[in-house]
Structures are given as C-alpha cells and as structure tokens.
C-alpha cells in the first residue's frame, strides 16, 4: 500500500542572551563544568527565579519573525518530573498559554513554496547535562546549561517528507538568525529538534499513530531518522502490525530509532501555574516596538531578489537561507556581475568548493569582489568558463585573485585565430573518421573535434572561435 508520511517538528531554539532566563549567570558555551551556576540555576532551596527581560524581548521578536501572534499575558507553568539534570525537579515552562502562537514559515521546494503552520512557540529553561564518559562508577552533572533560555517552536503536522523537514529547519534557522534571536548552532546545542512521525494510507484524512523521535542532533539526523521511521512504520503496517504510540530515541551510530517509553509509561507532568513568577501583561506598544526592530527577513529578501534581479523563486530561496550568502550575492551584483550568473556561480560552484573544505560563506577566502572579477574575466573572454571553474578552487586554496592565478599560470584564453587554426588543422588531419562522419551530416562529430582542440590547448582556446574555425576548415576540405 502507499502511505503518506505526516510529520510535525518541535524545535528548541536557544535565545541569544548573555544571561540565563531566570538568573544572571552567563550563557557562554564551553566553560568548565558548573562554572556558570548560582543558587537559582542550581535549584538550591529557597532560591527564586526572576525573568530576564531580554529573553521576553527575543521571544517576541522570534514569534513576530515567524508571523505568530503574541499572547496578551505572559504566564509560566511548572512541568514536574525527576531527572538528575533537572535541578529543581520541575522545569519552568509554558503550557496552555504560550507567548507566541498561530504563525507560519514558508519553505522553498523545487516544486514551489509550501506553508508550514506554527502551532506555538513557548519559553522554557534548559536542563543541565549528564556526563558519563571516563567516569567508572557513576555520572556527573554539569549545570552550565541549566536555565539557558529556550524557545520551543512547534509546527502543525504539515510536513510530508524528510526533505520538507530539512527545508523547514533550514528556513527556521535562517529566520532566527536574520532576526538576531539565536545563532541556531546545533553543535553547541543552541538548536535541537524532536520529530513526531506517523504515516497514513495515501488519500486518508485520518492521522496515523505517531512516534516521537528524540535525540536528533543535526539536520541530517532529523532527515535520516524520519526516513528510518517512515520505513519502519510502513513495514509494520504492511505486515499487518500496528504502530505503537511511543517515544523513540535516534541512535546515530546504528542509524536506527529505538523505543524509549510507551504511552502508558509517559510522564504525567502535573503542570500548574508557576507561583514564583506572577503573570503579567505584555503591552501591545512593546510588541509593536519590537516589530519595528525586525530586520529584512528571508522571505522579504527573496521577494526582492526575484523582483529586483529576476531570479527564480528557487534560486532566491537558496540564496536567502544564509544572510551572509544573500549579502555575498548582492555584493557580487554591485561589482557589476549579472545577477543570474552571480547566482549560478555562487550556487553551483562556490558553495560546493567551500562545503568540501568545510568553510562557511563568511569564512570564504574568495570575496564577492573576487568572484565578480573572475566572472568578468570569463565574460570578457580572457579565460574560458571551463578554465574559470578550475581557477575558482585555486582562488580558495591559494588565496589569490583570479587575475593573479591566470597570469602566473598562463591560462589566458587563446583568441588568436591563426594559433587556433593551426591546432584545428592538426585535429582534422589526425581524425579522418570524424571528418568523414561530419561530412555525412553527423553534427556530433564536430563536438569531438572541438574537444580535441580544447584538449590540445589545455582548455585555453576560446570555444566559440574553435567552433567557428573548425567549421570553416572542414567546409574548405569538402
């Protein structure tokens, strides 16, 4: 049977504050264990939480950036459960009244754009971290993360594939970074994700039983785990079994999900209003003030790129996923490059080269100006496009400009018709069969001969000239 996957994501976004959510301990990453702690975030008896105002501002900003409405009142709840990384035995979170609700994120797919609805985004404090490695008879707890401010962004079950989930996360990350509310760095734990996955017979409206997948530590893990889960559930249903409602853990090394707890074993969190934090009104003036602080967001930028530069929605969508990438593109255009060719060179060449070298766009040794120069050299005919593609990685590795590399390596394009003519003649003489084929009407034979000339000139001959000269010479020999 054919099944349709139904996926919802719950993403924890760490808000970019200097201090924790309920105390003034720093949020800095990579400190010595338990350095960033105080009686409040250690959950010592008698300590009390006080909301960091910056957290509220960033939460509202994040909510507005994903088109959420902002609650009239800010309320916190206690979520009660026992775990050694949870100092107080409860987590201060939000329950029925999240700070943000009812938003959406548009994702870009090759087939077009798709709207993913956001149910809610609520504030909560992070827990600590258990350390097991290298400890023979026990575990240690590091509470540096305890109390780090998180915004949990929950989608409707609107996603239909692992790649949609990937695109959603990419866009969520882009929006959060544009808005300046989070750096969404998965390695440092500032973006974490749980996936709710179910499948249903294609065409059915009724939702299947879902499994909640936890421990997804990278975008790739999210994709892989969803794919695994779809396969697992499909096999269950196809063999007449049922899917159990349960929480499963993604095992990165084995690339499988493993049952963690069933619905029956699920916690009763006993949510109730947090008595230590009195609810207060979030003024509409404040919301509007924050709205005005929002910068141009990815979708605004994408619209502008399409209108101003004539890019396709897909190209614009890819370019705006990273603010620096979008800036890079615009820089290149400002240096005189045609938008379409700047977009192509960035997307199909530069990003690949940087990826291979594990470099981000902001760390690129090739500046937008450097790239613009390279493209200009190609367009002027100083070098061929093919040579250009060879020069770009060298620009990255050698940290030289295109001009420097071309000059030092003698890569300037050959446009001397006499010189090309000589090589062309040689090619004709050496390949009588191709010449025959051409004469009998096979146009592809010309391609082969062009290739020979290019090979002989190490790609430096101007391809248009080679084409023209070869044709002339072949016609002369008829």
């Amino acid at each position: 049977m054919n099944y349709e996957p139904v996926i919802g994501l719950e993403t924890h976004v760490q808000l970019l504050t200097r201090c924790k959510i309920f105390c003034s301990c720093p949020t800095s990453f990579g400190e010595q264990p338990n350095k960033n702690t105080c009686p409040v975030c250690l959950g010592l008896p008698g300590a009390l939480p006080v909301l960091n105002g910056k957290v509220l501002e960033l939460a509202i900003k994040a909510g507005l950036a994903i088109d959420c409405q902002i609650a009239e009142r800010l309320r916190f709840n206690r979520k009660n459960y026992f775990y050694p990384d949870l100092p107080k035995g409860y987590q201060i979170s939000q329950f029925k009244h999240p700070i943000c609700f009812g938003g959406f994120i548009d994702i870009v797919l090759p087939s077009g754009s798709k709207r993913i609805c956001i149910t809610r985004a609520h504030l909560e404090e992070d827990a600590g971290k258990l350390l097991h490695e290298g400890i023979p008879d026990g575990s240690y707890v590091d509470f540096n993360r305890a109390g780090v401010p998180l915004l949990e962004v929950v989608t409707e079950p609107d996603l239909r594939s692992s790649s949609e989930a990937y695109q959603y996360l990419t866009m969520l990350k882009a929006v959060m970074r544009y808005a300046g509310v989070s750096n969404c760095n998965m390695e440092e734990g500032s973006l974490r994700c749980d996936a709710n996955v179910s499948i249903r017979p294609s065409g059915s409206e009724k939702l299947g039983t879902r499994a909640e997948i936890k421990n997804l530590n990278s975008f790739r893990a999210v994709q892989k785990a969803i794919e695994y889960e779809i396969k697992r559930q499909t096999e269950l249903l196809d063999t007449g079994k049922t899917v159990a409602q349960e929480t499963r853990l993604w095992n990165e090394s084995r690339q499988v999900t493993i049952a963690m707890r069933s619905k029956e074993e699920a916690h009763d969190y006993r949510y109730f209003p947090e008595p230590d934090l009195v609810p207060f009104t979030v003024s509409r003036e404040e919301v509007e003030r924050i709205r005005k602080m929002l910068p141009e967001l990815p979708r605004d930028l994408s619209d502008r790129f399409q209108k101003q530069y004539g890019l396709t929605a897909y190209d614009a969508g890819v370019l705006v996923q990273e603010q620096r990438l979008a800036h890079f593109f615009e820089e290149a255009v400002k240096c005189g490059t045609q938008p379409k060719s700047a977009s192509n060179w960035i997307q199909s060449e530069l990003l690949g080269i940087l990826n291979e070298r594990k470099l981000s766009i902001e760390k690129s040794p090739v500046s937008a100006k450097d790239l613009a120069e390279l493209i200009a050299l190609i367009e002027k005919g100083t070098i061929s496009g093919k040579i250009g593609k060879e020069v770009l990685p060298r620009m990255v590795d050698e940290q030289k400009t295109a001009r420097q590399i071309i000059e030092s390596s003698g890569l300037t394009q050959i446009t001397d018709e006499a010189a090309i003519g000589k090589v062309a003649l040689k090619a004709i003489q050496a390949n009588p069969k191709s010449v025959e084929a051409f004469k009998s009407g096979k146009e592809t034979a010309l391609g082969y001969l062009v290739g020979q000339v290019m090979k002989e000139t190490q790609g430096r001959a101007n391809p248009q000239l080679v084409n023209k000269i070869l044709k002339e010479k072949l016609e002369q020999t008829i």
Partner: protein
Amino acid sequence: MAQSTELHSFTLDEAVQAIKSKKTKPLDFYQALRKRVDAIDSRVRAYLNFAEPAAVPQSSNGGLLSGIPISLKDNISTEGWETTCASQILKGYVPPYDATVVRKLKEAGAYIFAKCNMDEFAFGSSTETSAKGPTFNPWNTAYVPGGSSGGSAACVAADEAICALGSDTGGSIRQPASLCSVVGLKPTYGRVSRYGLVAFGSSLDQIGPITKTVKDNAMLLGVIAGHDPRDSTSASAPVPDYVKELERPIKGMKIGWPKEYFIDGIEPSVRHALQEAAEVFKSLGASIQEISLPHTSYAIAVYYVVATAEASSNLAMFDGVRFGIRAKAETLRDVYLETRDLGFGREAKRRILMGTFVLSSGYYDAYYRRAQKVRTLIKDDFVQAFKQVDLIMTPTSPTTAFKLGEKMEDPIQMYLSDIFTISMNLAGAPVISIPCGFDPKGLPIGFQLVGNYFDEPKIFRAAHYFEQATPFHKMKPKI
C-alpha cells in the same frame, strides 16, 4: 554585671537602647542568652544550633539593630550555616548564600544567634514533626508550643531570645505565637522577600517577626520588609515607618467581628478572652461590628489542595542529587525512592502524596483549578469586608495548646487547629496574633487582627494600644 542575668528578658526595643547607650555590649547579650539556654533549653528544646561568640559584632555598624541577636527558623537560608528545615533529608546542607532577610538583618547590624526548631519543612501545627524531636511549650512542657514555627515562638516566650523570625504558610507564625503568648505577624504576601526561605507553599509563604511586644514586631518588620529584585512576588510598595505609626490613636477605628469565626468548636475560654478583648477595644474608642466572611468554611479544604500541590513540586528538588543525604541504590529510580523514603518524615510524605494527587492528570480540574476559584472567593470576602471595617478580629486558634502526641495520629484534627489562620494566607492579607489571656490551665490565648493589604501600620497601632491596656505581654512562663 548584676544586670546581665536579666539581659535575656529584654525586649528588642530595650536591647537596642542598651547597646546604643553603650550600657551593654553585644557580647553581653550573647552570653546572657547562652546562659539562659543552658539553664532551660533542655526542657524547651527550641533550638537546633548556635552561632559561635566570634559571630557577635564587636561594635555598632550604625544600623538600627546593631549588635542584636536574632533567632531564625531553620527554613531560612544562612550562608555557611547548616539549614535543614528540621528534616533528615537536608542533613549537612550548608547554603552558599544568605536569605534576603538575613542579609537585611546583617546590614542593620544584627547577627544570627541561633536556628530554631520547627515542624519538618513547616508541615505541622505542633513542632512534633521535626526530625530533631519536638519543642515543648514553656508555659507547660507537657503541651506543644504550636507550629510550625514552634521553636521561634518558644524561644521568645522563654526569654531564650530577644526576638525571632518565623514563616507562615497557614498560620505557622500566629498559632505558635498564640499558644506561647508572644506577638507574631504574618505580613501581607509580598511585603517580605521570600528569597532564601525554603519554599513550602510559594503563593502562601511569608516570613514574619515573632517578638515580645508589638513595638518590637514593628521594628523588626521595618528592617526585613521591602522590595527584593530577587523575588518577583515581592511588592514594590514603599515601607512605612511602622514604629512612628504606633502612637497614632485608634479612636473611631472600626473592628469587624466575623460571625463565621465564633463557631461551636471554639473553647469557651478562648471565646471569653475574645469577648474581653473586644471590650478593651471599645474602651479605647474603637467600635466592634459584626461582619461576614461567607466562604470561611471552605478555607481548610482549599488550603490543603493549594498548599500541598505547591509543596509536592517544591519538595521535588530534594532528590539526593546535589545536596543533603543520598541513599545508596543500584538504579536512579531507587536512589530517588530510597533517598526520599529515608529523608522525609510521615507528614512530609503525606503532603507530597496529596499534592501530587491533586495535580494529576484527570484530577487537576476537580481539585486544583476549583480550589483556585474558591481561593478567589475567599480573597474577595476580605476585600468586601475592608470596605466596611478597618480591621478584623478573630481567635488565632480554636483551642489553647494541646498535649504532645494528642493529635499526631489524627491529621484532620491537627489541620483543624489552623482553621482560623489559613484564610489570611489564601487571601494574602496581613495579620498579627497577640496575647489576650489564659485558660483555666494557665495556657495562653491569643487573638488575630487582620488588616487590609499593606495596612500593617493600622494592625500595629491597634495591637499596640491593646497591649498597653492589658497585662498579658508582661507575663512570663515559670520555667
């Protein structure tokens, strides 16, 4: 040094004057109190542990309470000094910080003299649930001192302290104050910072002074009250000069007499003492007016839902992971179970169970949500009443002190001893208990004066005039 034998019986006001005039050194008070403790605390058992003489300030810092020793309920955090809430589970826990009230006391020049016994985690009305054993009523050691601030009330009553701080979630300052014949105030919720007070019922808890006189109480509240940026529930309303307000006459003041508080279960001697107290007020120019607080009968039920719900969550932090005792066990689950089984006493377990139950999925609406709605009605009773009267007077406890062990096997009877004190915590209103007589067995009787929100000045005024007109505050237990 002839005087020093009497130093322990000084009021706070007298002690402040004595130190200010340099007639007495702070260390003299310390030594006098230690001597008194050595003589009688084996019979009262108000205290858990004491400051070393080195902790006594040598000289005045110019603060209002310079050199004054303060006795502190053991649920108020003291930096570098074990704070156990009289529970086994916190054995060995030494806070790395001072509660805000402790900081304020120290800034005013005072020092912490000793930590007082209490019901474990303030769960109780007799100080019998303490893991360190009970405190005895100085008026008759066969009787309980009340609770949960039993140690704080008993040490003040027995002149083992100049003054003390307690905490009050459902009557824990006022009921022992009444049973021991001292003055105890539960301030308006939010008046005193809770930062550093080990939480029981976060929406109900308040720290307050337990003193020998009303004036002492006003002095002490003036030092500990005020907004604290570390406590979001603390109020930003300015702190008045409570002592200055004391002398303003009370002529023309209207005092409400809520009919729901004069029920059948009340002891005749208590009822009689209250009627006498009303006569005193009339003679001072105040009028007594019958009023109604119609939702009073729901208070206990509401309280034991709200307070236990909050307590069950507040006590989750005692898990053996970061401080206190930890049981040795194979699995994490067993570490939790065994640590908490060993560490908590019966009453603590009972309240955790009740609180967990009322918050459970499927029961939340029937219990917690409904209790919160009724709590609003109870609060509204007071709001309405204070449109008619300035203060409300009620008995503090329906009975005088009961015998040790008398109610330990019957939690409901124990809970009912707070029947007159709980409503004010639910409403958040300020309320004092002051002495107003003795029963035929010689056990003290107290009564409450409830004020409107932040109207502690009016409470103090009325209580002060009453005190000046009556002899009870001068009467001392023979121990």
